[in-house]
Structures are given as C-alpha cells and as structure tokens.
C-alpha cells in the first residue's frame, strides 16, 4: 500500500444477494432442537439440565465458571431428552442438550427487561442475554463492552457491511429492525461514553442506508451516522472496517478497544435493542438459506438448536442433491459434513450447494502474477507463505508476518491457478503457533 491510501485492497467477488428482497419468515418450532453448549469463543458451558427436566423458553440451560463465556438458553419449551456428544465441524466434539418441544412455547417467568444503572450492570445484562458476536466470530459481546481503557474516547462502529456473497440476513435486519439497531447503538454509546458512532454499510444496500438516514434525522440523532462502504470483499472484516471508518491501523492481536474503537455487528446491536425492551435472551437467529440445492431460498428466523435439515425442510427442502453445505458465507464459512448439525448463535447463513455450484477447479502451476498479494487487504504475500510453509521455515513465516493474515480467502479467490492459498495460510499460522509454544 502506498501510505495514506484511503482504502485497503479488496476484491470484487460476485454478490449473489439473491435473497435480499425476501422478507423474513419465522420458522415454526421444530419437534427437536439440539442446543450446543459451545457457542462462543472461549470456554464451553456445562449443561444445567438433565434428562427428563422440563424447560421453558428463555430458561438458562448452560453456564460455566470460566471467564470467557456466555450462558446458553433454551429456545423452546418442552422436555429434555438427553445430553448428546456430537462431532462438530471443527473436528472436535460438542455437548448438545436435546429438547423435545411441546409446541406451547411457554416463556420462563424470570424473563423481564433488564434493570441496571451503571456500566458494570450493563455489561452483566449483556452477558446474561447470551449475546455473542453475530457476524460470525462468536466473541462474547459483554467483554467488548468492558474495555480496560474505559473512559477514553471510544468510537462505536456498527458493522452492517455484510460483504460475504449470498448472505442477506444483516441486510434484512437493517431493513426490518432499524429502530432496534438505533436503540441498541445509543445504549452502547451511553454506557461506553462514546460520542460518535458509525453504521458501516456497503453501498449495494442503499435502501438500508436511506432507511437509517431517514430515521436518524427524524429522531434528531446526530452522534450516530451511516458510513457507506465500497461494495467489495472484505470490507466487513473488523480490522478492515476500522481502517475504512477511522483510518486507524489495527494489527492482529490488538484489541480494537485499544485503538478507541468498539466494533459490533449490526445484528448483535439489533438484538440488544430488542433485549432491552423485553429481556428475552438470544434464542433465535435470522439466517439466510440459499444455494442452488434449496427449493425456496429466503431469510428465516430459526430457533437456536434447530437442525439444519429441518430448516431446509421449512424452505421447501432440497431440490437437488446437496454436495456441500456451508455454515456462513462462501468466503469464510465452514463446510459441514452432516445436515443433522444444529443452528448456533453465530450462524448467519446456511448455503446448500450442489456438485456444480461447489466445484472448485484443479490447482495448476503458480505463474507469480502477484494477484494474491494485490488482493490481500494487508498486502501480505501468500505465495511467500506457501514457499516458506513447504520448507517449514517458521522464521520466514514470521518475517512475512503470517500472523497478520485474517484468513479472509481473497488470495484463494483471486488466484488464476486456483491454489488453496488461504488454506496454506491457516496451516502456516498453526505451524507458527506450534513453534511458539515449544
């Protein structure tokens, strides 16, 4: 990058926002939900219920004493069928609480709007809501609102970029829950002492920008503004967004709060706005269902723990045999091996692709075109990583700053030789981590 460049590098990946016009539908409660106990970065929760217990909607069913965690709540009312262990998409095992729904959706009597009157109270309320970063990272949100440097000027950046292709759930949130986003944002700004807030939205969602502008000016709110971003990938990545909005450089391993920025996903903020009104913890999620194997793509509010198969069944089922199912978008989403897996809090899309759509051409020889380097938002050198990884040269990997890589996948996307560069970067990062632990 030439210093002072206004924008970081990005790629023009196809948008495929087929479902942008699909108003959200609410999925009826399925017979069975399987609620995962590890839905956040950090420690997994321990189940608080056992087989045969009756649970109500919003009841806390998982918690732990570990520091970095958020509690888990029941999304349906019914009877606990058992505690299962299931292999997850990462290769590890998750504990799942299986609840058979009674269809009544009785709300737990303890659910009421949170009451607090100081910043620690606010943080505790956010923690109790079970909120994690809904953009995909599932970082416990309460920790974000509890920075070490509280009292310093903070800029709130609300991430409505939604740069991943296919996904439109944030877009629908911004159109349908606009007031909740504003309320949630103002509450965060109030307790963090923040005087300026921005809602970063890619300019391919002009309707959302217009709606926010209209509502904000109508209510006379000046400290919260919309911030149009280029509609390119990956403008919604946290470190890229911070640079685009504030011009500050956020390196890997540095918390945005250290730079005076709080970044929160727009759906997280919208949830918070709603939670402050009714106190219902995070038990459902708006998910984009798309891909050429799905009969009726759309946006669906799904109870946490619903199996992917049931959700797709709600969307008309499969119209062709799925070959690959992704949790999240095609650029950073995770391919899962079974459609029995449950929806977790940070799911924003389920994409079911047929063989044709999931086809990735065979790798050919690198022609040193340098597109991976010019596509990288941080101007890293993926071909250099690949060579150094092949040689298992940890020093070289460190010299090339591999730990700065955020695995956005732009290099793999743009490579004319279709090399799996982002995958090699992940392996290289694992190698560096391993070496540093020795």
């Amino acid at each position, binding site marked *: 990058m030439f210093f002072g460049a206004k924008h970081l590098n990005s790629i023009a990946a196809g948008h495929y926002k087929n479902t942008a016009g699909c108003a959200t539908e609410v999925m009826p409660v399925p017979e069975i939900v399987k609620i995962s106990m590890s839905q956040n970065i950090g420690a997994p929760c321990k189940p608080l219920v056992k087989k045969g217990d009756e649970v109500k909607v919003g009841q806390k069913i998982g918690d732990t004493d570990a520091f970095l965690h958020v509690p888990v709540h029941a999304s349906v009312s019914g009877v606990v069928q058992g505690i299962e262990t299931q292999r997850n998409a990462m290769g590890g095992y998750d504990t799942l609480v299986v609840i058979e729904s009674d269809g009544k959706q009785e709300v737990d009597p303890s659910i009421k709007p949170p009451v607090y009157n100081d910043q620690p109270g606010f943080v505790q309320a956010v923690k109790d809501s079970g909120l994690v970063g809904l953009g995909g990272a599932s970082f416990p949100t309460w920790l974000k609102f509890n920075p070490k440097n509280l009292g310093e000027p903070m800029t709130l950046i609300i991430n409505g970029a939604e740069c991943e292709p296919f996904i439109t759930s944030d877009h629908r949130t911004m159109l349908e829950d606009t007031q909740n986003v504003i309320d949630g944002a103002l509450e965060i700004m109030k307790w963090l002492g923040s005087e300026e807030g921005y809602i970063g939205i890619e300019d391919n969602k002009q309707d959302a920008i217009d709606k926010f502008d209209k509502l904000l000016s109508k209510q006379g709110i000046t400290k919260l503004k919309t911030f149009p971003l280029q509609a390119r990938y990956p403008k919604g990545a946290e470190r890229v967004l911070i640079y685009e909005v504030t011009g500050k450089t956020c390196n890997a391993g*540095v918390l945005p709060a250290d730079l005076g920025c709080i970044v929160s996903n727009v759906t997280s903020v919208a949830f918070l706005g709603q939670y402050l009104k009714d106190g219902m913890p995070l038990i459902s999620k708006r998910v984009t269902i798309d891909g050429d194997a799905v009969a009726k793509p759309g946006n669906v509010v799904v109870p946490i723990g619903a199996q992917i198969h049931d959700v797709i069944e709600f969307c008309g089922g499969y119209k062709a045999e799925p070959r690959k199912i992704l949790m999240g978008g095609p650029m*950073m989403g995770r391919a899962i091996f079974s459609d029995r897996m449950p929806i977790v809090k940070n799911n924003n899309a389920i994409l079911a692709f047929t063989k044709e759509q999931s086809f990735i051409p065979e790798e050919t020889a690198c022609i040193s075109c340098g597109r991976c380097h010019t596509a990288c938002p941080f101007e890293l050198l993926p071909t250099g990583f690949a060579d150094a990884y092949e040689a298992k040269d940890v020093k070289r990997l460190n010299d090339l700053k591999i730990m700065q890589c955020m695995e956005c996948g732009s290099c793999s996307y743009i490579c004319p030789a279709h090399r799996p560069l982002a995958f090699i970067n992940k392996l290289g990062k694992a190698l560096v981590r391993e070496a540093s632990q020795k």
Partner: protein
Amino acid sequence: MTDNKNTVYYDNLAVSSSPHLVTSLDTQKTMMWVLIALAPAFLASIFYFGPRSILLTVVCMAASALFEWCYEKLLGKPITVKDLSACVTGAILAMNLPANFPVWMAIIGCFVAIVIVKMLFGGLGRNFANPAIVGRIVLLLSFTTQMTTWPLTRGNVTADAVTGATPLGLLADNAMAQAPSLKDMFLGNIGGAMGETCTIALLIGLVILIWKKIISPIIPVCYICTVFVFSLIYYAAVGSEFGALHMALFHVLAGGVVFGATFCATDYVTSPIMKYAKIAYGIGCGLVTMIIRLFCAYPEGASFAILFMNVMTPLLDMLAQNQFYGIGAAEKAAKKAAKEGKEAAKS
C-alpha cells in the same frame, strides 16, 4: 433419535477449507487476454508487411505449443498446453522477428524459448528469464544477418530496395537525417520487427491489458517514462540538431521499447510482485535500454535490458518485501497503545 420414516439426512457432505468460491479468471483466460491484446499489433504487421507475417506467427505459435506438448509427453508429465502460455510465447517471439525471417530459424527460436528456457527449468512459473526474449536473443546472436535485415513496409517498397534500416540503425550510423518522421514511427510505417513498429496498435494492446486488469500499469509506465526522461536529459546535455524533445520521442517510438514494456517486461513469472520492486524493475529496464542504445555497440537494447532485469527480479522482490499493512508509524502507535493498555491493567 426420533427420525421420521422418510427423512433423508446427508451425513457425507464434501468438506474443504474456505473459500468455497473462486474467480472464473484462470491462467488460460489470462493468456487469452494477452493474445487478444497482441491482435492489434498482429493486424498492423499484416497491413505493413503482408501475409508473410501470418505464416510466421502461426508457425511460431504452433511450434511452441508442439514443443511443450512433446516435452511433457516424453517425460510423462501432465499436459499443460491448453493453458495457452506456450502460444503466447510463440506469438511474442514471432512479433520480435523481421517479417521475411526464414521459418526454420524461427522454429529453432521456439525450441530455445520453450524447451531450454521454460521446460528445462520446470515449466510454467519456474523459468527465471522470459522465454520469448531469450529466444529472440539466441536468434539475434546466431543469425545476426537474417535478424537485422528488415523488410520495408508496403508503402516504401521500390523496384531496387526491399530491405532497409530501422530508425535506431540509422541513429547508430549517424544518419539521423534519413530517419522517418515521428508520425510514421507512431503509425508503424518503418522498418523493424513485425510486431514492434506500430506504436498505436501496441498502445491499444496495453490499454486492453490494463483495462482487463491482466497487468499492472506500473512496469510499462515506469519503463517508457524512464526511456523518455533519460533521453530528454541526455540530448539536452549533449545537444542534437533535432532538439531534445524530438529525440526523446524518437527513442520511445523506435525499436522495441513499447512492445517490450507491454508484453515482455510484464511477463508475470519474470517480473517482480511487490509494488516498489515493480517500480525499480521498470526504471531499470528503461535505464539499461538507453545505456545500450547510447553507449554500446548494439543499436537496440530492449531485449537485453529485459533479460538483465529478469535476472534481477528475485533480488528486487526480496528488497521490497517490507511493505506490509501496519509497518511503520501505525504499527508503532498500536504497539505503544497495547503496551500502555497492559501497564494500565497491571497497575
């Protein structure tokens, strides 16, 4: 489990690392765009030098592809001819030859380019020098007479003269008075290698490549600007009867500078990746070209300059490898903030 009777679950789906979406621009399409960008120069060569340029171009492209195919077949390697890179090499080599060049010699050039320079070093992506450039240099040194006998363009052919000198040849012979006008040089109505003469056709190709984002404009712009500025300064200092500006434009339009800057110096494999290395590479190409033209025995130096800078490429890339996000002031500030944050947390 309370599976319904007819429920079909998919438990054996494909898994792979993200991203699950890739661009449709592959190596073959990239090479296709280079061929498309070469088309204006090819058409201009047919216009000025007649159908013989078609024969030479087709033979070179076919021979290059055939050599690559034979080599891979003989060694039992996967066949990569369909990525079109051999055809691009053949086409670029052909554009570097005089239109009346013997066909069998051109095939030798293709053999050198494809087998010796490219395949023996490991095929596409592994060669250290531009195959077409080395092919041309080998032909120039082996068949100097044929390589420097330039046919006249169709407008200039007379009963007693079918060949003539290039503008740079005239300059080297101190015969600038006979040199063609800048307009003729811009339109390509001059002697020279069949693809190099028509500057306007080459510029169309350059615009196509930059517009389709096949190449970055840094190398061609730096190369051409360096040639212009260097000759401007040189002739301003030395003095010339035509004036420094005329001579600077003359050097840009004459010989292989525009062709080399567009199609040879920008070869992915043998040019740097890093931005600052690209700038240094382009400037280096321009400087070496002008030094050879002005101070050495050869009238033209573009191909030698590009070969020289090809060899420098790994070094330039290594020197430029510190241009990352976060290096410099911003990183220091972030480190400081992190440190202060830690201290604050401790106290």
